[in-house]
């Protein structure tokens, strides 16, 4: 049964993970600004601390002290609950992410399926924000976001199922163990699955070139146009936490997770995860946004057929 001491340990673990999530989100916000600045031959934040490393803390204080504007005509309950519905699933996904050999909160036997199921409920929050704001830009952003996320969910899931063929388990630790001989990305059909995964995951977290839900030039800020202060900060934390989650899944499923020579497991895991995040940032600041009429077609006409055919070929490989 649950004793007091084990409960205290559990609470400490959860607090440590929440601390990591906040620190990681802050670091990523600073890093994104730096990467974008250097790609555009600017410096980015330079004033607060060494090369602006304390900028996210200044931002956090600023957002904490901002006036909270509640526009007239918002759907009160929906509007207020939206930041919860976005942030809580993003936090809950961390239960099953393996940082090291023994460094995982709980190695659930449903592992990857749990993470996918939990993170995809974040769409409720985004749509609630879009609907509840009583703002035309927000509604359009929310609708687009819902359509985009469910469309790209299919190729994303099928590419993950291709990995399951080879791992034979849903547990994150067993998927890492299955890569003892070689990283899954070195397998030809999983190589294809990796690219399908990365492209659809980029769309899942609404990042450029798939950032239509918050296309600044047409929809202001999309679903969070009306949010200010701490509520806005929650959408930002959730966005960067989700970005960490999808990169962590990519590192675990395709790049061998915490496996690697010499360095300890968690270091390898973070190196791989942040490398993928860097690639996502690089993509964001290099490619222009796709058009809305190209967006749905790309998911259903290109990615879904590719991933289905890839799955059939991979299944044949398993059995031959």
């Amino acid at each position, binding site marked *: 049964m649950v004793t007091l001491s084990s409960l205290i340990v*559990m609470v400490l*673990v*959860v*607090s440590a*993970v929440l601390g990591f999530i906040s620190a990681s989100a802050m670091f990523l916000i600073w890093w994104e600004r730096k990467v974008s600045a250097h790609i555009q031959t600017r410096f980015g934040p330079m004033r607060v601390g060494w090369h602006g490393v304390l900028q996210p803390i200044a931002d956090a204080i600023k957002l*904490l*002290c*901002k*006036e*909270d*504007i509640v*526009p*007239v*005509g918002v759907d009160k309950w929906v509007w207020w609950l939206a930041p*919860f519905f976005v*942030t*809580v699933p993003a*936090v*809950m996904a961390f*239960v099953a992410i393996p940082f090291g050999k023994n460094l995982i*909160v*709980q190695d*659930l*036997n449903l592992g990857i*399926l749990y993470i996918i199921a939990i993170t995809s409920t974040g769409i409720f929050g985004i749509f609630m924000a879009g609907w509840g*704001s*009583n*703002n*035309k*830009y927000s*509604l359009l952003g929310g*609708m687009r976001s819902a*359509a985009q996320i*469910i*469309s790209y*969910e*299919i190729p994303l*899931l099928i590419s993950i199922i*291709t990995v399951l*063929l080879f791992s*034979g*388990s849903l547990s994150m630790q067993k998927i890492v163990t299955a890569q003892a001989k070689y990283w899954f990305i070195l397998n030809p059909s999983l190589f294809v699955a990796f690219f399908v995964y990365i492209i659809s995951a980029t769309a899942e977290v609404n990042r450029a070139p798939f950032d239509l839900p918050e296309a600044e030039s047409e929809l*202001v800020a999309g679903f969070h146009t*009306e949010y200010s*202060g*701490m509520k806005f900060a929650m959408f930002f934390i959730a966005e960067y936490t989700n970005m960490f989650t999808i990169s962590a899944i990519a590192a675990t499923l395709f790049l061998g997770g915490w496996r690697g020579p010499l360095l300890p497991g968690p270091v390898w895991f973070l190196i791989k995860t942040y490398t993928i995040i860097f690639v996502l940032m690089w993509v964001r600041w290099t490619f222009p946004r796709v058009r*809305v*009429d190209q967006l*749905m077609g790309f998911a*259903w*006409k290109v990615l*879904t*057929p590719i991933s*289905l055919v890839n*799955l*059939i070929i991979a*299944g*044949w490989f*398993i*059995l031959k």
Partner: protein
Amino acid sequence: MIADYGYVGLFFLFGIVFVASAFIVSWLLRPRAANPVKNSPYECGEAVKGNSWIQFNVHYYLIALIFVIFDVEVLFLTPWAIILRELGHVAYVEMLVFIAILIFGLIYAWKKGAFDWQ
């Protein structure tokens, strides 16, 4: 087995506490200076016209319907993928038929223009 999910519940509670505490701290610190102009919905400075809860493109519903079909397909594929090695060729052929029917459905939706945005 069910005890494994204790952490899931705890993360759920702490996630709510995390967001709520941020809101409470901000509620204590922030200024309050609301006025009708500031509180009107943002429409790039124009006066607000009408309600935003209006009819929208029917395509969103089509996409949602197709999504439901394919999501259920993925649900069927997951257990199949995990134990394919043990099930062998019969299961592979069965799933091939299943996927073929779905691909046929995908082509049908494609020809009907469900994925073309106007």
